């Protein structure tokens, strides 16, 4: 198997006394799309929020175990550094409403107080929007507010914003759950293009979506990692009975 860029070792996550992720061991292969699939409330989102240290921002949250980015334990690193190297796209598009499209793309620099020259920022804006397949639609409106865009465009703007800081990994937390089918298709296509540049981890409760875009699938059920494997194998010949039942639509 390809080298793992992100590795969770015995990772458990709690909300208060509530154990929501149970001793998960998972290796995310580089340059691929790994889908984390499972029914609602199984801890998928919590799991990936442990990967960029967003989980610990909830007041009662607690984490056990380790997560390695390449060979570094991210819980020994500065959370700020972790989050610039591991980006995130959320369920609902959340561009900054008081900023223009342009400023939204370079928000990762601006908000951190990094000064960019005019040419640097225009380069980053164009490259990031190109990568997020949004450039052609917005290149004439870069000075307008990001919230004027449609939902799907806003989500691609958020992807561009995450790409602009050049992360190693992008985490997608059900990025299409608030979008219509057409916008969803657009985002899915975009994800498969993006894996050339960045490793993707996608959380989804949608089996079909996991099947369409991912290379590897991890099946999570009530906080436990039931099964992990290449897409084809997991979807057609699952080893575990729970996976089989989930794929057959018996629950979820």
């Amino acid at each position, binding site marked *: 198997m390809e080298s793992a860029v992100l590795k969770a070792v015995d990772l458990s996550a709690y909300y208060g006394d509530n154990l929501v992720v149970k001793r998960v061991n998972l290796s995310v292969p580089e340059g691929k799309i790994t889908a984390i699939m499972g029914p609602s409330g199984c801890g998928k989102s919590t799991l990936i929020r442990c990967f960029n240290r967003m989980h610990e921002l909830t007041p009662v949250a607690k984490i056990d175990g380790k997560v390695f980015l390449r060979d570094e334990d991210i819980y020994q690193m500065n959370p700020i*550094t972790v989050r610039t190297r591991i980006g995130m796209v959320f369920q609902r598009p959340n561009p900054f409403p008081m900023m223009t499209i342009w400023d939204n793309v370079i928000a990762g620099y601006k908000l*951190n107080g990094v000064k960019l020259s005019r040419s640097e920022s225009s380069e980053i804006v164009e490259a990031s929007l190109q990568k997020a397949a949004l450039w052609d639609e917005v290149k004439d409106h870069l000075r307008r507010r990001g919230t004027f865009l449609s939902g799907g465009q806003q989500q691609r703007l958020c992807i561009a914003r995450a790409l602009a800081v050049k992360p190693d990994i992008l985490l997608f937390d059900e990025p299409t759950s608030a979008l219509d089918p057409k916008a969803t298709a657009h985002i899915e296509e975009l994800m498969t293009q993006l894996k050339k540049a960045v490793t993707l981890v996608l959380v989804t409760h949608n089996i079909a979506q996991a099947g369409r875009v991912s290379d590897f699938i991890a099946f999570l059920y009530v906080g436990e990692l039931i099964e992990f494997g290449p897409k084809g194998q997991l979807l057609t010949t699952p080893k575990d009975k729970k996976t089989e039942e989930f794929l057959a639509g018996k629950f979820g």
Partner: protein
Amino acid sequence: MIPLLLIVFYIITNGISSLSWTFLTEIPTPVGEKGGGIANAMVGSFLLVIIAGIPSIPLGIAAGVYLSEHKKSKLAYWGRLATEVLQGTPSIVIGIMAYLWLVVPMGGFSALSGGIALGIMMLPMIIRTTEETLNLVPDSLKEASLALGVPYYRTILRVILPAGLSGIMTGVLISVARIAGETAPLLFTALGNAFMNWNIMKPVNSLPVLIYNYATSPYPEWHRVAWGASCVLVVFVLTLNLVVRIITRRWKVQF
């Protein structure tokens, strides 16, 4: 609506006749002399609002941020209670407190003590509007910023506060409009002054105190000055409220 229109109509019809350029630029004349104006009271009110705002605006916004960020903490609970009690405290009581704690130790009436008394009145209004505004800012924006590796304090300063800017500005301006018309706390603190004064360690005149003193005097020409000053004050407050309207409409951030 009808009481408001009646008040505005009555004040303007009575006050407009005394308004003139000299009314706004000259200081009051002794009884019996013609002319004179309320420039010293306008300057005094201006100074008082500035002195009140300099500590209270940042402090109030900071407290509002704290309350909305730590909704369930013990300190927030007590802070919220204190804010409510402070908001309900009669302004004359605040004036007496300022007299005891500031005027007496400093050995004299001053604009500074008056400004601080007004600042204490402003504080709960700013805290509450800031808290309420920031509660409406969705958490997703904070998450978006933190997920980009932006530190917490920068997220507050550069994402959360700008997103709530129109609401916060509204709170600040409304509190300015409120304190600009306060009389009671100023009677024991800024006192009043028949002359022009820019020194914040000395007593200053202010529009509401001037109105109070002149309206209760036995001289008809002073009554006219009081009407004119009332007119200026009401127009100022109305204008501030209009500005608030414009700000909320123009700067409204759509989430």
